[in-house]
């Protein structure tokens, strides 16, 4: 297979994962200006839920995915009610300190329970191997990732662009005070959005294991990528997050393939260029 197609294919699959793991943060950051650095801990939780259910209880891979979603959603809503809620009117430094603390707690908890090794995970046979298509060699799991994330993206976009719930979320992101003044219960709306975002992160984390691996450092490693996606994509913009995640996924894969020596810096260069070109994000509205 010509490398450029392989790199693109892997980059898109990777970008899909990044999108799932970051879209919730983009929306909630845009809506409440709350900097939740613990967002990737929800993704990590989803990952551990899936490996536990599969390895310890013998659940099939697909059956674990809804549970990973629910785990991410429940964990995020519990943290929101217990801690985050009190910090909405606080400054960003306090929010960062609180949530980075939660990241370290989640890392320590994961290491305590599961150890620091990579978690083994056996994909079902029908998701293994690759198919050959016009001379291309396409890994089945990555194809599945792209299809699944594309489907979720469509559902998400339809929900946000075509339903009243979506219009209320966009209105609250746009002008929270006016939304409240028209009778929209922004706090409850935000609770739902927060749970949805945490759930998607949990699902993304579960889907990520087979491609990115899973160990306790996951919550911090991918936080960097998620933050880049959110800042490049623009707060509260689904389309922006999607484009930024694709760009980052492909750039990272291309860097690793073509200039391995530079690969760890390349994404930061991409981010720098994008932020200088579009300070409020690709599709940023403010």
């Amino acid at each position: 297979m010509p490398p450029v197609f392989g790199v693109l294919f892997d980059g898109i699959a990777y970008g899909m994962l990044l999108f799932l793991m970051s879209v919730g943060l983009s929306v909630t950051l845009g809506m409440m200006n709350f900097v939740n650095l613990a967002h990737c801990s929800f993704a990590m939780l989803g990952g551990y839920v899936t490996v536990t259910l599969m390895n310890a209880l013998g659940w099939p891979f697909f059956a674990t995915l809804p549970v990973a979603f629910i785990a991410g959603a429940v964990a995020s809503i519990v943290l929101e009610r217990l801690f985050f809620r009190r910090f909405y009117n606080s400054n960003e430094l306090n929010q960062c300190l609180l949530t980075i603390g939660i990241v370290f707690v989640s890392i320590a908890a994961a290491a305590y329970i599961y150890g620091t090794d990579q978690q083994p995970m056996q994909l079902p046979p029908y998701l293994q191997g690759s198919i050959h298509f016009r001379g291309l060699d396409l890994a089945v799991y990555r194809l599945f990732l792209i299809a699944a994330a594309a489907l979720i993206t469509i559902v998400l976009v339809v929900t946000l662009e075509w339903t009243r719930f979506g219009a209320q979320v966009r209105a609250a992101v746009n002008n929270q005070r006016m939304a409240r003044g028209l009778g929209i219960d922004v706090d409850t709306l935000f609770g739902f959005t927060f749970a949805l975002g945490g759930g998607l992160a949990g699902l993304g984390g579960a889907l990520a294991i087979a491609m990115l691996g899973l160990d306790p450092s996951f919550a911090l490693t991918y936080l960097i990528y998620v933050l880049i996606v959110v800042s490049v994509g623009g707060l509260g913009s689904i389309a922006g997050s999607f484009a930024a995640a694709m760009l980052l996924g492909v750039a990272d894969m291309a860097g690793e393939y073509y200039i391995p020596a530079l690969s760890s810096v390349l994404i930061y260069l991409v981010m720098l260029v994008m932020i200088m070109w579009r300070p409020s994000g690709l599709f940023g509205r403010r």
Partner: protein
Amino acid sequence: MAEMLLSFRDVRAGYGAGIVLDAITFDLPENGSLALLGRNGVGKSTLILTIMGMTQIGRGRIVWRGRDITTDAPHRRARAGIGWVAQEREIFSALTVEENLTVAARPGRWDLKSVYDLFPRLAERRRNFGNQLSGGEQQMLAIARALMTNPALLLLDEPLEGLAPIVVEELAAAIRRMTGEGANAFILVEQHADIALSLTQSALVIERGRIVHSGASAALLADHAALDRLVGLRLAEA
């Protein structure tokens, strides 16, 4: 005394620790109308925001249909029947005109059809986004959006401010039509005191955060000397 729609009892309000309004007391009956006059910066918008629950209240009580709402959250007040047209319009730029109208709509006699009848220009612009509108269109949308919540009390904060004279006439006519039916109460803040007084039953004049005059709109409109003294009115201009 008939049951009042909205009553303020000795309310003190402001932002944070800063007091802007003090000793505010007034009553508004069901379907009543009130002009809120006063020079720039005296606290008219702050009074509107206080009705919406968006300021800090230091003392006093706000009563809505016999129920104390002094500590109610803004969205509860909106749902109880208060419709707010903000001075800065605050259109949702990320929503289309039609989404702006439906996003918080509640059932009642105002629906898409009747607000489009009132403002035909909004119907033409229904698929445009909020930030693609002229100032006059934004103001029409802000009013229509509040009407779509079918409020028992409509708060209009300087709806004619900063608009071209021709648009002012068009909007004033629409406001006259909409309020003339007397189907809901409204409070109108307006620099054009003559327009505000001709549209309302009673008037409050505020100066440095306190009520300095309260009475019938018609009487104040006829008393040029008082008007000039209270609001420095430029009636001749209008």
